[in-house]
């Protein structure tokens, strides 16, 4: 049998079991199992959480921290830490706005109704935004963790120096080496390891799907080159 012969048989086929209005109505009211729908929901949740986080961070950075520092005069926050915090917050706000604009632009005309090629391009764009949003949230969490740990260590060290009447230059090579190893370990445990773990998880969940969509789009693009 070749395709033309198959076509003749195909034309003789008609739906055997048709769903009635009630069964179709039930389907309309069921939740979609589509991955794209789930990702879309996750992106919206991600944007909502980020908005709350940004609002809280700005409130903390511009109002809460300066007031607390005035109140607790003995607490000393190093300038570099304050500057790093400010830069991170600015970066988060700018990236968030960029993602939101790109997402709204992509979603403007909806997915599913355009031709296959346009639809795939849109879905891949949405997935790219999702991936970047995921890394942004991960970056925020890790930066916050590292900043807090950095602040704790810095305060602990300066308090220790103060108690024993020492300065940084009094430390020997061994102590400096030990401190370096400790910083490196802290970075690996709290920053690098969680980052690699989450990256692996994301690729495990969506990696194959993204690759499959890209392969299909490439097949269509070959056709128009």
């Amino acid at each position: 049998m070749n395709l033309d012969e198959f076509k003749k048989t195909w034309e003789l086929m008609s739906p055997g079991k048709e769903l009635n209005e009630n069964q179709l109505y039930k389907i309309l009211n069921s939740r979609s199992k589509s991955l794209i729908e789930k990702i879309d929901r996750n992106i919206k949740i991600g944007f909502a959480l980020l908005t709350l986080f940004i609002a809280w961070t700005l409130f903390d950075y511009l109002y809460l921290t300066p007031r607390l520092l005035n109140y607790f005069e003995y607490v000393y926050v190093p300038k570099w830490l304050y500057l790093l915090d400010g830069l991170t917050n600015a970066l988060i706000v700018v990236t968030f706005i960029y993602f939101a604009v790109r997402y709204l632009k992509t979603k403007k005309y909806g997915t599913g109704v355009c031709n296959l090629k346009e639809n795939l391009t849109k879905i891949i764009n949405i997935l790219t935004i999702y991936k970047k949003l995921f890394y942004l949230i991960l970056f925020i969490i890790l930066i916050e963790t590292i900043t807090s740990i950095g602040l704790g260590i810095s305060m602990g060290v300066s308090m220790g120096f103060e108690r024993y009447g020492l300065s940084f230059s009094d430390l020997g090579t061994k102590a400096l080496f030990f401190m370096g190893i400790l910083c490196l370990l802290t970075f690996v445990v709290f920053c690098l390891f969680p980052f690699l773990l989450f990256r692996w998880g994301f690729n495990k969940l969506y990696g194959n799907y993204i690759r499959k969509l890209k392969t299909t789009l490439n097949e269509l693009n070959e056709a128009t080159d």
Partner: protein
Amino acid sequence: MEKEFLQIIRNNQGIIYKVCNIYCDTQDDRSDLFQDIVVQLWKAYPKFRGEAKLSTWMYRVALNTAITSFKKNKRRPDKNDFPYNNLQLEDENYDSKTEENLKLMHKAIQQLTGVEKSIVLLFLENKKYEEIAEITGITQNYVRVKMNRIKKKLKKLMEAEEE
């Protein structure tokens, strides 16, 4: 609007069944895809203004859904499952040889890529190259080229299956 939509789906269920048959191996996958396609059609319906033919619009949404659908756990196809059990052949056209051929052709089509499957389906549904190009977003010339390649590929696959 809902009643009008349900009526359209009732009258054109064959389109959805055929897309599900081409893209799925098991009855469970076909049911899931059927549900997804109906939901996507319903979401897209308010924007449908009749600029394209109703069947073209339905194929577009259905194929987009099928190609971008994602199966976390691939189900193993049932060997005894006749792939077109939601479609029927009129009695006088039915014989065991035809069923065997349909199974072989289905197996061969399952080995095509997602884009190739969509072109085959639209060809089987008597769509003109112009309409296939409109639905897939590629040029008419390339649809022609691709169609010839698919026919050759299917012939080879069928020969391999028959051996």
